[in-house]
């Protein structure tokens, strides 16, 4: 399997959030905080988690999902757990 590139995952997260939250993709950077900067709530976060699970074959527990606060957290989670 091809090793995922950080930029590719970031782009996927950016694309998902921009579509679902109806915001300018340029507002979304690695350091962007979901709640404070994007006004996203738990439902938005779960939809992102499920999108990442479906796309990259990773599995995130409730506890892990609750710990995702920034775009970078989501990207690093996927990179750390991508199937070998």
């Amino acid at each position: 399997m091809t090793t995922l590139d950080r930029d590719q995952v970031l782009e996927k997260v950016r694309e998902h959030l921009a579509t679902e939250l109806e915001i300018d993709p340029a507002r979304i950077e690695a350091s962007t905080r979901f709640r404070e900067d994007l006004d996203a709530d738990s439902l938005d976060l779960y939809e992102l988690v499920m999108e990442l699970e479906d796309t990259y074959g990773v599995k995130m527990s409730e506890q892990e999902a609750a710990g995702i606060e920034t775009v970078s957290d989501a990207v690093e989670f996927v990179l750390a757990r991508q199937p070998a």
Partner: protein
Amino acid sequence: MPSPTVALDGRGAEQGADTLMIGARAAAADGISLRVFGDAGALAPLAELGGVEVIDAPGEIANTDEPVAAVRSRPDSSVVMAAADVAEGPSEALVSAGPTGATMTAALFALRRTQGVRRPALSVQLPRPGHSRPGALFLDVGANTEARAGDLVQFAYLGSAFCAAVLGVERPRVALLSVGEESGKGTSQIVDAHATLGDAEELNFTGNVEGRDLLGDAADVIVTDGFTGNVALKTLEGTARTIGAAVSDAARSNPMAAVGGLLLRPALGGLRREIDPDNTGGAILLGLRGVAVVGHGSSGAEGIANAVRLAARAVEQRAVERTGELLEGAGATRGGLRRDRNEE
């Protein structure tokens, strides 16, 4: 046009599988195709009916389970399998009389929110005793305990589109539930929503109504937050039950009253049916990319059948597409409302 296929959760109904099967049988007799998910052994008699398929779903989610964790960890549960069946295509609508939290979560995760909707809302049709006009659509009755002004605005569009599409009301009168009819009455969310809705050309917004107007003829769509809506709905149900019992007791209190009670029985029976929650079948979760109906927890057979009929009607009338089109056309999506706020 072929009748829609409805995915029915075969578990979780408080009155048990036998009641659920009677309801499913009645809905199937109307020509609605059903895919029923649950204990295949217990539901086997249904599989003998034309247009009904039974799919074994070994798992169950109970009222005591935490909905998000349970839905994510039990893909073999009946409600999760039924919701997935709608998302993946064989079925076109979901109906469950199981735990409300689990049904809403399974529907949200599988069907996803309509593009631009921040919070879906649970809506029920209230009775309107003594009127020929369909009862008011009341939302939100419990999906969100708190709602922002923008959410209330979206609920108004969702309710208006559904009311027109499925209940057949032309230019539904849309109102906000508040503590007074004046535009400045209510919480800051209500006041802000009132200001936005007052400018909404696509809606027939008529202002505020009060709790006493819920069963009257003041509006066709009544919007509130899920906390208030749930309390109001349960208050109405409890009041109706208590008054009904008190009337029965009074009618049996002496021979003269008993004669009066007998004379009134046919009229009171009609009224009882009119205000029976089974009559409308359940609450529909508006703001999703598919149809999901949450049956009343204590649904009887008629309640189950009517919940399935409601779901089928929503599919036939393209309720999902029409609500999305109205939101989009009015600029009332999440992004549209945000842009409006920024322009102010």
